[in-house]
């Protein structure tokens, strides 16, 4: 059994505490005698895995946690090493991190920015974590990223797709491996144009909050660039449950494509109901009516069941990709948990390894040194092909997957198929692109 007791033991072991039973105050200092926040001084270093464990994304959080545990095992030299065998950087040798064993604590974000901040705060203050990883919504990512900047630790974002995370809310201490709404649009639009033609009229249903808005903006811009028209964009309440009153006007609007800018439970309900409305059986303007879901995830696809067959969407990564990194990861994950990893699991796994690798290359846990090692880092072998961590906005650039719901699945995990691997060059943009402008990274902050 792995033992992890998540205390700040490390601080004390090397501290000036002579013997037990000393009843007088020995140190009385402001802050502690560390060079930076939560400097690990014992023989262990603690990571914080902050994922949704309750609420609508709990299953996604569970999958992230599986991957994060696997990453810790591989860093500590247990298991088969996974992507460490294929990773282009060889700084990690499976002996822990700078001679210390990696342990972790877990927290529950509840997919609420408040709860996520509180949980992250307690990890930083009580458990002394040096890095936080995880999450499955942009609101949470942006909130926790801000906290980490203030506290002086590193945030390796999990699933966050909004442009703002590395756009107007970018932070020096926050790093995103996941792709974003702009990239989804850039990758999807050409494929859609090829499949459905350039003369299409789109109707958007958009979840009424920041992520929904940035995705709507991105997809609208990208599809209009290939010649589509946007008939109408309609905002729907988050957690509406029943979307019928938003779906009824669609057929009659003259639109022949429905774009669902929803995620999670909203997406599962809206697409199921849209299909029940028989939209995809209709012919409008002489063309077959189609539905598009710009952001896919395996769990949503599972939840929507039959409804996603033939529906296009985009993903950050998929277990069916044919490259050595993917194969190594799917093998160690699949053998341990009996199911293929989701794309949120992959992003968390990779982010954890990337952080550890940056520490190893920098030779220090100091956040400023780690940030320097991560910025403008080129790597390969992590499942996404050659990848670049841009220093200007801390966004990763790599190929984007365009997916389609599989018509004839052969087993329970075989729900989506890869349609196209959009090359990195096609989804790149300048750091000051209008959709991302207005943010500043700020300064590196080592804390106390």
């Amino acid at each position, binding site marked *: 059994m792995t033992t992890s007791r998540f205390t700040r033991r490390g601080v004390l072991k090397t501290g000036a505490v002579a013997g037990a039973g000393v009843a007088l105050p020995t140190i009385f200092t402001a802050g502690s005698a560390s060079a930076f926040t939560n400097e690990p001084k014992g023989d262990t270093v603690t990571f914080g895995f902050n994922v949704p464990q309750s609420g609508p994304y709990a*299953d996604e959080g569970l999958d992230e946690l599986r991957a994060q545990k696997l990453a810790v095992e591989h860093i500590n030299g247990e298991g088969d090493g996974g992507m460490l065998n294929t990773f282009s950087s060889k700084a990690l040798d499976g002996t822990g991190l700078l001679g210390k064993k990696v342990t972790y604590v877990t927290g529950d974000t509840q997919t609420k920015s408040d709860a996520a901040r509180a949980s992250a705060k307690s990890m930083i203050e009580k458990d002394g974590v040096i890095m936080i990883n995880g999450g499955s919504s942009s609101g949470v990512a942006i909130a926790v990223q801000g906290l980490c900047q203030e506290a002086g630790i590193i945030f390796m974002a999990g699933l966050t797709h909004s442009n703002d995370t590395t756009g107007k809310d970018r932070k020096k201490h926050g790093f995103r491996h996941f792709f974003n709404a702009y990239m989804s649009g850039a990758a999807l639009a050409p494929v859609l144009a090829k499949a459905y033609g350039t003369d299409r009229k789109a109707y958007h249903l958009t979840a009424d909050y920041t992520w929904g808005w940035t995705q709507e903006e991105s997809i609208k811009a990208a599809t209009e660039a290939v010649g589509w028209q946007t008939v109408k964009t309609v905002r729907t309440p988050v957690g509406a449950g029943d979307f019928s009153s938003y779906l009824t*006007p669609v057929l*009659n609007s003259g639109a022949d494509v429905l774009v669902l800018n929803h995620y999670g439970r909203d997406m599962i309900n809206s697409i199921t109901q849209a*299909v029940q*409305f*028989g939209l995809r*059986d209709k012919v409008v303007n002489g063309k077959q009516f189609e539905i598009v879901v710009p952001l896919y995830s395996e769990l949503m696809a599972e939840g929507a069941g*039959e409804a996603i067959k033939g529906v296009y969407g985009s993903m950050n990564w998929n277990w069916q990709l044919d490259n050595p990194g993917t194969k190594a990861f799917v093998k160690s994950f699949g053998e341990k948990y009996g199911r293929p990893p989701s794309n949120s699991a992959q992003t968390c796994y990779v982010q954890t390894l990337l952080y550890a690798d940056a520490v190893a290359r920098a030779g220090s846990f100091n956040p400023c040194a780690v940030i320097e090692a991560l910025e403008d880092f080129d790597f390969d072998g992590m499942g996404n092909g050659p990848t670049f961590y841009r220093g200007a906005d801390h966004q990763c650039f790599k190929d984007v997957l365009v997916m389609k719901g599989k018509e004839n699945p052969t087993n329970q*995990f075989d729900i989506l198929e890869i349609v196209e691997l959009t090359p990195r060059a096609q989804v790149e943009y300048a750091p000051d692109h209008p959709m991302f402008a207005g943010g500043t990274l700020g300064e590196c902050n080592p804390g106390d």
Partner: protein
Amino acid sequence: MDQIILQFINGLDKGSAYALIALGLTLIFGTLGVVNFAHGTLFMLGAFCAVVMQRILTLSAITIDPTQKDFLGRPLEVKTPYVELWFGHDIGQLLIDWAVPLSLLLAIPFMALVGWVMERGIIKHFYKRPHADQILVTFGLAIVIQEIVKQIFGANPIPVPAPKAFSGSLDFGVLLGFDPNVIVYPYWRLVYFLFSSVILAAVFAFLRYTTFGMVVRAGMADRETVGILGINIDKRFTIMFAIAAIVAGVAGAMYAPINSPNYHMGMDFLVLSFVVVVVGGMGSLPGAVLAGYLLGILESFASMNVIKDALPGIDQIIIYLTAIVVLLLRPRGLLGKRGVMED
């Protein structure tokens, strides 16, 4: 014009679900005088009956097929549902396809049991306690049931498709003389509308035309006198609670194809069903039905683009706004009896 007809149909359909959920709640309040915050949870349990039925029907025998591979490249385990093995492929597939309607067979006895256990185990002891205590204990119960469901089924919604015979939609517009594709509505939602009408009619007929119903109605009016007459009203109240649970349960089971069941859906519907009951008048059955349809239609119209453009966000709050207005102007609700909870 066509938009208005369409939203009207949609409102009736939404309203039928609201009415069905609110009916059981107001039934319990009217007969037992109990405010049940766990009512949404009963709806959720009903929806999970559909999930369980689907799982039962798809229980499978596992055979290894070396010609196919799973995601790790190992021989694939092929699952064949037992019902297909027993009844042949076609009948087996048909049974699985009809899992949702069949789940009513499971939902009725199961929800009756749940209702009975809840009333005898907990609610019974709270008849004489203040409403606040009833709200609190049932709120606690709702949390407990919800967490148990989450631990068993996980947090991700589980898809439960409607029978294939009801997929697709009916083109109403053509019947009314509009162009094709102008007014269409899914078959399954129409089925749900009919189903809820039948259930509503059955509950009303039961209370109006049976001796049992008469006694219960008498008990609603004056519990003590009925007791003095030597009628065991307690036992009938237990049965009433079970009936309310069944109504909520079947409403949930049939709703499963529309809204994939997840552990939290009870809380989402709880607030809504309370609003419906309060607007209709606490304890008034016709009131709950009327308010259900009314709120459904209002909500549909509020989400029309024209109205949303004029008043952004109105579709998000219309239900609550209506509740506030009704409560202030007509505190006993639309059809509430004079003097019931009217202060």
